[in-house]
């Protein structure tokens, strides 16, 4: 992509083809997306939006603090008046990106989305931060965890039909979930509902990290215990380089 943002490499690259123009202060609200023929990609320094015939197909936002996907990304980009570059959209690349990063997908009318985003802005203005309950007064994951620590889970005497599903609905729990189906033993380190580390042992093989999450779609007996730091080999993380390599290899398919 040859443009003013070319020096910034985003995790999910903009599906940008031929450049159409630049705008010093892009205004989402005033932009006539309905009048666009074909697909275009609006690229900003911190993200991009792909629009096709009045429909927003996908969006991505990234800064040094966070990455946002889909509608969240679009909302963030809408909050600031920023310079933009307009490109023809590379449909094939966009399709590949949506396949690999389905979280960027939106596929909704631009007009409806703008209305929705403006409504949210309005609510924020009316309610304001003073009406938001202070975090300290809300029961935290740590408090609710305390009553459950050391106890067999409440699901049918600790038995769950699908361990993977159980973990996906664990709420804001922080601690360790130990699970067993009699032969396989699992340990999951969960921080505020997110699995940050995992181990599996079937007596013959031991697996740690992201891989364990592929094996846990089984019925099991579960038990929660307090947080302890996981061993390094258990840590779950998605390798950025592998995602990029996968993306590159699919572009040739």
């Amino acid at each position, binding site marked *: 992509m040859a443009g003013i943002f070319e020096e910034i490499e985003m995790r999910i690259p903009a599906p940008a083809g031929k450049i159409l123009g630049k705008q010093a202060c892009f205004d989402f609200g005033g932009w006539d997306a309905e009048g666009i023929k074909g697909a275009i990609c609006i690229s900003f320094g911190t993200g991009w939006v792909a629009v096709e015939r009045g429909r927003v197909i996908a969006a991505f936002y990234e800064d040094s603090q966070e990455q946002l996907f889909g509608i969240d990304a679009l909302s963030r980009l809408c909050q600031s008046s920023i310079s933009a570059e307009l490109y023809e959209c590379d449909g094939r690349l966009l399709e590949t990106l949506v396949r690999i990063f389905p979280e960027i997908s939106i596929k909704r009318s631009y007009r409806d989305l703008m209305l929705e985003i403006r409504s949210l802005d309005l609510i924020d203005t009316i309610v304001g931060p003073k009406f938001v309950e202070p975090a300290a007064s809300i029961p935290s994951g740590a408090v609710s965890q305390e009553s459950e620590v050391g106890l067999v889970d409440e699901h049918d005497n600790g038995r769950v039909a699908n361990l993977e599903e159980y973990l996906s609905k664990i709420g804001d729990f922080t601690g360790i979930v130990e699970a067993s*189906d009699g032969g396989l033993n699992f340990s999951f380190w969960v921080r505020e509902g997110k699995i940050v580390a995992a181990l599996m042992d079937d007596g*013959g093989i031991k*697996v740690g990290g992201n891989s364990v999450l592929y*094996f846990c779609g089984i019925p099991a007996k579960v038990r929660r215990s307090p947080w302890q730091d996981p061993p390094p080999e258990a840590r779950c*993380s*998605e390798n950025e380089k592998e995602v990029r390599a996968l993306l590159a*290899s699919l572009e040739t*398919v």
Partner: protein
Amino acid sequence: MRRSVAVVSGKGGTGKSFVTCNTAIVLAGAGFKTLIVDADTTMASVEIIYGITPQKTLQDLVSGEAKPEEVLYSGPNGVLIVPSGARLKRRIRPSELDAAIASVLEVAAPDFLLIDAPAGLDAEVLTAVMMTEAHLVVCNPEITSLADAYKVKSVLSGRSRYLGAVLNKIGRIELSKFRVANLIGPILAAIPEDARVRDSINCGTPYVLKYPESMVTKQILRVAGAIAGVDLYLKKETRWPGFLRRSK
């Protein structure tokens, strides 16, 4: 016949034959009459995994030197096997493969037919897929294998129903399940890397019979369950043969 499934892969070495052979044993152990045809005439390995030494093979059937009943062998749990023949006499044409399998099906009348197809996307693979009502892809968690699996899935779509992918030899995988499933899903099973797999092949005793309680066997049960359309599980009170049964 309840269902026929072709087991395919992008490249060789993904463990396709291992998955096919062990899945067939599980289905047979659950009481289903199961026939496995080794259609990989260039890299036949079904007979090696089952530890049998066939006199007549698919290649003899195709060349008219054997009758269908002469190339049918009984394996563990009563699974019926049509071996390809480890020594390649000549490459089998798709029409010959089609006719040969049809003649065996008439004799065997199985509940389930599993075709262990060659790797890649040659005419034999397309024939195997078009002869069956569904297919599944076996791949490894490496980027190249995932891209291959995606390619195979795309090319074969529309030729028969795509059951899903079996991720085999999972060691340390650094892509999330969500991302991989979105690409080649549904993921029917995720089989961990296990040194005992090689041992079982080397000694000619199928893995699911040797290590019925292992994670690998549990994942093979999932593959068999997806094919049969029922939950399958280990019947602990009896030993081989027939150590599996259907769920209620």
